[in-house]
Structure formats: C-alpha cells, structure tokens
C-alpha cells in the first residue's frame, strides 16, 4: 500500500458513461491482484461539488513493465487499468482528466479473489460496472469458451451498453476483447444473450452442465463450480442464494461508501452473516459469500 502521484496514460469512453482509465504503476510496488482496489483523488472538480473523499475503484487489468533486453532499464512502465462509470462529481472529475496529468492514488488496497480449489471450475459473473474486476480475474484464470475450465458471464441492461461494442467506443485492453468474444451474456431487455439477469444466465448454464453429466464433456461438467461475482447489491444477494442452493463455493466483491479505505474508520461495513459487521475495505472487498448477510444490504 502506498500513496503516489500517478501519470494518467489512458482515459477514454468505452460505452455510454463508461470510461477506461490506465495509469502508470510504480516499478517497485507489488502488482495489484484481481479484487483489489485503489482510491483516487482528482485534482479539479466542478464548482460547488464540495467533495472531499477519495473515490474507490477496482482494478480491471494490469500490464507488467517491459524491461530492455540488454540493460535493466524500463522500456515501458507498468500500467494499472480500471473501468468506471460516470455517476457523480467524483467520477465526472476523473473523466475530465487528460492523459499526461497527475492523479493522487493509494494502492493496492483490500484483499483479492482466492484461486479456485483443485477440481473447481471458476464461473465469473459480472453485472454492470462490476465487470471490471471480473475481466481482470477472468484473464488471470484463463477464462475461455464453455469447454475451458473458467468461464465469464456478464450482465447488462441492454446490448447497446456492452463496452467496446458501440461505434463510438474506444478499444480497451486486447485481453478484454478476447474475453468478451467468448463470454456469456445476459441483458435485461433480451437484446443480447440470455434475456434477464446474470442469475438467469447462470441458471441456464447450470442446467446445461447437469444435462451434460455422464456425457462426453462429463469431466468438465462434473467439476464443482466456484462462483465469483461483482455487481449491484441485488445481483449479489441473488447470486449468494444461487450458490447456497447449489452448494458451491462463492466469492463476491462488495461495495460500500468509504472514508479511509484502509480499515481505520469502520465506515464501510456490511452486515456479517454471523452478526456484527465486516469492513469492505480491509476485511474485503472480496468476501466468501457465506460471511455476508447480502439480503440485509439490499434496500
């Protein structure tokens, strides 16, 4: 964990109100892991915004530094990537930043997604802007087509909102493009993939897997699912139920208003399943789905 001034390298629209930002990563700082997040403090805000808090964002990707073959010099610094939605003054301020400008960052923060256990198949489910950390995780776990071990399931309100696809959308990381090509989709309006929610898409896949048991792809189909999720509160509550019903491991990345971001203020808590509260920034943001009372957090 460190506070540093990062140079913004990329900051461009990838879907309506969605931006892709990349910034230089200090060469001597451990690389961020999927699930971890950073907090940013943009230098300029609109008049009367009156914001004072840093804003937390999940990492959506990381590119290692490249080192010259013959020397130990960096030929290109490392870059951290994030996908964010423009919602209020903080993200509007972020969206107005030009490449080359400097951004106050504290990172890496929080814990990361655990690897699936032996014999587990990673099912990675992202909803809305929650896809950022899911892309990062899917990349690391080598998610691919249905035949591969890990698969990615993404939910959107409509096909038009899928990033990198619209005509005005800039390209993101090459790995994201590949992942999106192989991903399963759900859309609320049915304009792409399974009509309905991410859970609906998962239910469909689950049925398919059961059907396949005993068939040729038995091996794969029989693997236990390990569900990874990030998205809006109601989605996580629904996925937690799905995971519990089907007795699968599940880890979700949660969100909550934050102040310190490092575990000191106890402001960012969620209700724990066993009573009491857990801090999203320091005990999470990744939680074993069974440890949080997700229902209580959906209002």
């Amino acid at each position, binding site marked *: 964990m460190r*506070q540093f001034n990062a140079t913004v390298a990329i900051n461009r629209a990838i879907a309506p109100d969605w931006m892709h930002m990349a910034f230089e990563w200090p060469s001597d700082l451990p690389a961020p892991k999927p699930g971890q997040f950073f907090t940013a403090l943009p230098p300029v805000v609109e008049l009367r915004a009156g914001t*004072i*808090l840093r804003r937390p964002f999940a990492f959506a990707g990381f590119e290692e530094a490249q080192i010259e073959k013959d020397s130990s010099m960096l030929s290109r610094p490392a870059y951290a990537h994030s996908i964010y939605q423009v919602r209020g003054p903080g993200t509007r301020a972020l969206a107005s930043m030009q490449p080359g400008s400097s951004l106050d960052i*504290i990172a890496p923060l929080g814990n990361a997604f655990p690897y699936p256990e032996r014999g587990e198949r990673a099912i990675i489910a992202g909803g809305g802007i929650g896809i950022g950390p899911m892309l990062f995780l899917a990349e690391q776990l080598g998610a691919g087509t249905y035949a591969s071990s890990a698969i990615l399931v993404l939910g959107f309100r409509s096909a038009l909102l899928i990033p990198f696809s619209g005509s005005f959308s800039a390209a993101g990381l090459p790995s994201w493009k590949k992942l999106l090509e192989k991903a399963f989709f759900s859309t609320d309006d049915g304009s792409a993939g399974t009509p309905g929610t991410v859970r609906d898409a998962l239910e469909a896949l689950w049925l398919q897997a059961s059907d396949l048991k005993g068939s040729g792809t038995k091996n794969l189909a029989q693997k236990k699912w390990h569900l990874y999720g990030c998205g809006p509160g109601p989605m996580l509550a629904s996925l937690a139920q799905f995971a519990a019903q089907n007795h699968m491991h599940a880890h979700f990345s949660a969100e909550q*208003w934050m102040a*310190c971001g490092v575990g000191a*203020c*106890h*402001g*960012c808590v969620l209700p724990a399943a066993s009573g009491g509260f857990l801090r999203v920034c320091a005990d999470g943001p990744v939680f074993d789905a069974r440890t949080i009372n997700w229902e209580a957090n959906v209002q």
Partner: protein
Amino acid sequence: MKNPEQEQSKKNEILAGPPPSVLNLGYDLNLSVRIGSLIMPNPVGVASGTFGYGEEYDELVHIDALGALYTKAVTLEPREGNPPPRLVETPMGLINSIGLANPGVEKFLREKLPSLRTRLCPIIVNVAGSTEDDYIQVIERIEAHLASTDSGRPGIDGYEINVSCPNVQKGGMSFGIDPRLVERLTHSLRQKTSRPLIIKLSPNVTDIAEIARAAEAGGADAISCINTVVGMVIDTEKKKPAIAMGTGGLSGPAIRPIGVAATYKVGKAVRIPVIGLGGITNASDAIQYLLAGALAVQVGTALFSDPRAPLKVLDGIIEWMKRHSVHSVSDIRFMLR
C-alpha cells in the same frame, strides 16, 4: 501501582526533542506543548476515530512524527456499532454514524496496546460510555493494567473523554450538554488517574463555554474542541435518510468555522489548554485554531482525502512560525489581534 508522573517524565525525556521533520531544519523553534504532565513534541495530533489504533495507517503515515495519536474510542464492553450505511459525504463535509464500534477495553489492552507501546508519539486513549460508571471502569481497568505490566513505555499517555455519547441513564441525552454531569464525571475520573485528562466537548449545545468551565472545575487538564455537529442527509430518490441511523455527526472543512468559533469562546472561558479540531486540512486552518486560543490541534477527516495531511500541517506551521518570527508554538494562542 506505579507512579504515572514518573513514567511520564521518563517518556518526556524521549519525546521532548523536536520531531524528525524539524530536526534537520537547523532552526531553533520550540514546537512542544504541555498538556497536564505530558509534553507533546509538536501540536499536531490525529483525531479520535479517524486513525483507528494506528496500525492501519502504518504504511502511509510516519506515525512517530505526530504530536499525538488519539485512539478510536474505547468502551467497557465490545461494540459492533451501527448498521450501515454509516457514511455520507456532504458539501465539504462528512457525516458518520459509526456507533463507537470497538473491541472493548479488555481486547484493546490485549490486542491494541502492544503496538501502541512501540510508538514514539504520545498516545491518548479516547474513552466513551453510556453511564458514568462505564467511563470509570474503563480508566480503572487501563490504570490497573499499566500498573501490573512492567514495560519501558506505558503506551498510554493520557485520556480524552468523549462526553458526546448518549447517556442511557438520562434518557439518551448526551453527557456533554449538562455542565453538572460533565463536572461530576470529570471529578470522578480525576480520582482514577494522574495522567492527563482531556474532556472532549460537543458543539451541539447552547453555551459550550459553560461546559468547558464545568470540565475545568472538575479537574480536567485540557479541553478538546470540537466533536462532530449533528447533521442529516436524505436520499431524495430512495426517500430515506442516507445513513441508517437517520442523523449522524458532521465533520470536515464545512464545520471548521464552527470549531474555530467554539475554540475562541472556550479559550476565553477557561485557563486550561484547549486542543482545537474540526475541519483542519492545512497549516492555515490549524493556525486559525491556534490563534483562536488552542495550544494544540487534531486532524481528522482530512486524513481520508490525504493521509499526509497531519505532517503537511506541521510543516506549514513551522514555515509560518519562521515567517512570522514566532519562536514557540505555544505563544501563538496569545497572538490574535
């Protein structure tokens, strides 16, 4: 029972020198301030509840260089705190409703004190309770523990008493609004410790000076001024309060003028030192409090936007003192024209 005065003077020897950031300036500035028997190496502390018990900020802040670390509140029993959401941002402010979440005094002594003992800066334990007896027991328990453990550093150099808590015996009204209760509470606690006793006042009263005088009469060594201001935000889309408990405590730059006014008023009302806080983000803010009559300051909410804020504040005070030819930081409180 060991003699805390003696312990303190041992620690003062270690602490009395200028803090790291000043050592290499080559200037002859006196930054230390005295609160009761304690000498703080510089006037800039971090406010209770915003810095945990220190560990969380270890990688971001040079904690040993702080003037003092005021811990998160410690209560007799463990507290889980209030249901979320606990935070909401307001114009240049923050409302919190943490509900004094803390592990309780036993676990505090077992799990938090050891790391506090390793700090070079003074540690002030913030104490909260729902009855007078709660406060008394916390301090008795801590004093007994310190007397029984033999260690070079006590790890606790004083107490800050948070009297803004709802008083369950008085129908949930806070202790801090009734001068008689404040005097009695201070008096009772004074019997239990010779370490510095700081009473932290709530601004949510008609006459804060009256409460400050009561604390002084009860034997307090200093006044911290101010705690958060009652505030509320309503989510107009969900049509319900933005934080679960309805109202919460407003902090940050928005309340700074309220804190400075309160410090000025209290500074005129009592002879014991005042520790000013509320919305301090930079040196100029801190100097406003010092000119208003404070001997020391605390930085709270500003940590959340920039953990470097306290030490930047200290550097800025040093720069200001040089520019205005002020030798001793404790003189600033007499300089308002």
